[in-house]
Structures are given as structure tokens and as C-alpha cells.
């Protein structure tokens, strides 16, 4: 069971990122729990300068952009 956190204040890119990550998880058949982090202090606990950020099992894997489904599948499998 992976824990996936979406960091962002609810902007368009954060919603897009969540959609991409959910599709990636279901297409790869990986069970994952999705959490949306909107509190700025909690977001800044990770080293990022722009949202959306993607955190998989407490590791920041991307920030400031929307990764492709293929990328997210790789991170989930790692």
C-alpha cells in the first residue's frame, strides 16, 4: 500500500495531477491511498518552490509540473 500525497492549494494543476496519479495507480494495479495536502505549512515541510507537488511514501518526486502517467507508474513501482 503506497501513500500518495498531492501538495497544492486546489489550483487547476493540482486537480490535474491528482487525476493523472489516480489513473496511473489504477492502470498499474497498485493499491494507493491518496491524500490532498492544502495547508501551506504542511506543504512547505517538503522542499518545494511551486505547486503542485507529488509525494510518494514521504518522498517528494516532482514539483511545479504535471508528470506523465508513465512517470508516476515508475515512481509507484520503485
Amino acid at each position, binding site marked *: 500500500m503506497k501513500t500518495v500525497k498531492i501538495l*497544492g*492549494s486546489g*489550483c*487547476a*494543476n*493540482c486537480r*490535474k495531477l491528482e487525476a*493523472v496519479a489516480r489513473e496511473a495507480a489504477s492502470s498499474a494495479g497498485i493499491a494507493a491511498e491518496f491524500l490532498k495536502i492544502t495547508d*501551506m505549512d504542511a*506543504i*512547505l515541510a517538503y*522542499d*518545494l*518552490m*511551486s*505547486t*503542485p507537488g507529488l509525494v510518494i511514501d514521504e518522498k517528494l518526486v516532482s514539483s*511545479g*509540473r*504535471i508528470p*506523465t*502517467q508513465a512517470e508516476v507508474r515508475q515512481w509507484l513501482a520503485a
Partner: protein
Amino acid sequence: MNAFLRLIEGGAGNLAAYLAAHVLLCLLPAFFIAGAMAALIPKASITRWLGRSAPYHVSYPAAAAAGSLLAVCSCTIVPLFAGIYKKGAGLGPAITFLFFAPAGNVMALAYTGSILGAEFAFARFVLSLLFGIGIGLLMALIFWRDDARHDALTDTAFAERARIGGAALGLLLSLVAVLIAGTLKLSLLNAYVVSVTLPLPGAEAWQATLLRWVPFDAAKGEEGVSVQGSLLIVLLLAIALTAWKGLENIVEGANRWTWLTLGLAAATLLVAAMRLTPSAGGLDVAFTGRVLAVGAALWAVLHHARRLDADAWRAWLWESWRFVKQIFVLLVVGVFVVGMVRQLIQPEWIQNLAGRNDLMANAVAVVFGVFMYFPTLVEVPVARMFLDLGMHPGPLLAYLMADPELSLQSILMVAAVIGRPKTAAYVGLVAIFSVVAGLLYGAWVDGVNAGWVAAGLLAFLGALAALMAWMMARRRRPAPTQV
């Protein structure tokens, strides 16, 4: 009922005129530029200058540059603001960044320039830059103890370095060239190269129909829709329709709709650069120097875009499309509402309140800016309405400085990050600085000797510097024991 119809008509007319005339030449390239900035400029290329150890003369200009280049959307503004404040150069540069971002980004500049004039955009840019740095310095001095407390922490987030790639830089520059070629008022660009007449007998009748649909009163600053304008509106709608299919899933790769959308966007820019005039025999199409310039710049864009790797250009198109979705709809609604409201406001009210450039008028403009909240960029058509109704350019600039910086939303956001006392100080400083900016710009527009205006600006900055020097001196005294 009649009054209601008049309101709707005013809104529709305003919207049609904006879509047909102003928005295209500046906003279409501006969306692509903003997208390129968001996707292709690595944040670290600027944030590396915003670390805790950066000296004043580096961190403040870097904060302004970040406001201008990185902060095209709120997804960047909030985290970057909080990051600079909590982990980086501190409160002062964070405030400079926050203040400069709404006025210094490419969309605001392009839009202000095309609707209110280049002079206005220039004044807004320069005064926001100077005063943004001034407010930042003042805040840093007032609350210096707070920064001293942060100094103990590390700033690894700002250690990363990056450079913008050659292809990305080329793309950005050629997009700026498209913007400039499309909007610059130069006789060379307006000169006819070749002119042909298309045998379209309906063109004149169509123009007459358009004038009947969108009646306008030039005296009130209203504008009608030309044949060319109607063609541009059709092209815009076509772009909107194809973009849903072509750009919504661009992150996963391009499809046929993508190329159609991009082709239509290029065609729109080229058509906007031509001059179409209905005549007795048909439609006169004049190819101006502008068409050649826009065409050459578009070719350069294509050339550089092909050198980008797939991830980069997809991210670029996605960010551009996201800006369109985020801003364009609000702008369309905003322009419509402005057109309706204009029917209700008597020019005398505005002229009595803010027709002159005095302290009172500037203060009223700033208070209005603080209490009114308009979505991104809608402040510009609102400002245009006030200008047409007789507001003095000075108070208008004061309003433009205060409105985007001090919307209720941004005040709440700032309060959440830096706390209420600092937010109150920030709001107060912005209000004072905006009034001063309005007074100075108004004096300059009124034809007061440029030397006097410069002297006024210098006197204000000098008073500020003296105040800061005094506070610096106080700061060097031994700090109270509780710190």
C-alpha cells in the same frame, strides 16, 4: 425591461469590441509567453539568488525578477512567497516579490499596454518595481527581529542551481517578438506591402449588420465591431473548440486537434495583422509590414519549439492552455459586466470624485482598490472604463497599484503566512505608496516639469532612505534580552 435590455446590450457590445480589437494581438501571444515562463524557466535559476545568505543588493532585485518571470500564477506565488519568507532571504524580499508580481508579469504588462497605453504600462512597471523594493526594505526593517529568528534555519531549498536552456530562451524571445510585432505602433509596420480585393459582395452589407448589432457611441469611448473583428471572433471561437480536444490532454502527447489549434492561433495572429476593409466590389485585404513581421516571428517560434524536447514543449502548451482556461473566462465575464456597469455610472460622479490629481482623489482610488476585488487582469478593463468616464490618470494609476496587490484574497493569504500585525503594516504601506505613485504620475501627465516629478520621486525615496537609516542605526543597538 428596457433598462435591463440596455444593460445587456452594453455588456455584449463591450465584450464584442474587446474580443475583436484589443485582446487578440496582445493576449494570444501573452498566454503562450506566460506558459513558456511557467514551464521552461527553471525556478532554481532565480531562486538561487534568494537564499538566506544573499546580500541585499542581490536578493531584492532577484525577488523582483522572480515576481516578474516566475509568478504568472497563484500556484507559484503562494509557495514561493512562503518559501522566501520562511526558508530564504526573509520578509523583505518576500514582500517585494509579492508586491511586484501582479504588476510586473508579462500578461499584466501586455494587457495594460494594449488597453490603457504603453505609457501607462511603463509607469505601472517602474513605480511598482521601485516601490515594491521600498516596501520590502521597510517591512524588513520594521520586523527585523523576526528575520533574525529565522536565520538559524538552513536554506537548502535555495542551494539548487539551474540555467535556462538555449532552445527555451530562443522560444521565449521569439514569442516576445510576436507580441511586439503585433502591437508596436510603427509606421514601417503599418505600411502597405501589397493589397488585393477579394470578390465578396456581401462584405459591405455585413459591416452594416454589425454596426446595427453593436451600436456604439465614440464620444463615450465605446468601440464597434468591424468585419475583420467579426472574423477574429469566429477564429477565437474555433480555437476554443479545438483546444478542448487538442490541449486538454497534451501532457500525454499531441494529436491532430493540437496542430489544428496551433494553426488556428497562428492564423488568428496573421489575420489580426492584416487590414480588411469592405468596399463596393468586395473585401480589400491589405498585407502590411506587420504581417511580414508577425510571420517571421512565428517562424522563429516554430524553429525554437522544434528544438525543445517532448516533455518541455508539452509542458509549455499545457501551461499556456491552463492560463487560457483560468483567466480568459473570468476576463470575458468581467468585460461583459464592466460594459453593463458603465451604462449605470454617470460620468459626473467619477469626475467629481477623481477627476483631478489631488490627495483626496488618489486616496479615494486606493480605498476603492482595497475594497473591490476583481479577478486577475479584470482590473484593467475596469480602469479603462474609469478613464473613459473622466477619471484622472493619476488616481487611476493609484487604483491600479492598490487593487491587485490588496484584494481581500491576497490579504488573507498574506495574513496566513506572515501573521496579522505584519499584514496590517503591509496594507498600510501599500496604501501610502500607491497614493504617492498616483500623485507623481498624475503630475507628470498634467505636464508638470519632468524635473519636478523626478525631484518629488527622489524626495520621497530620500525620506524613505533617511527613515531606513534611522531604523538601521536603532537596530545596531544591543537587542533586547528576550530575543
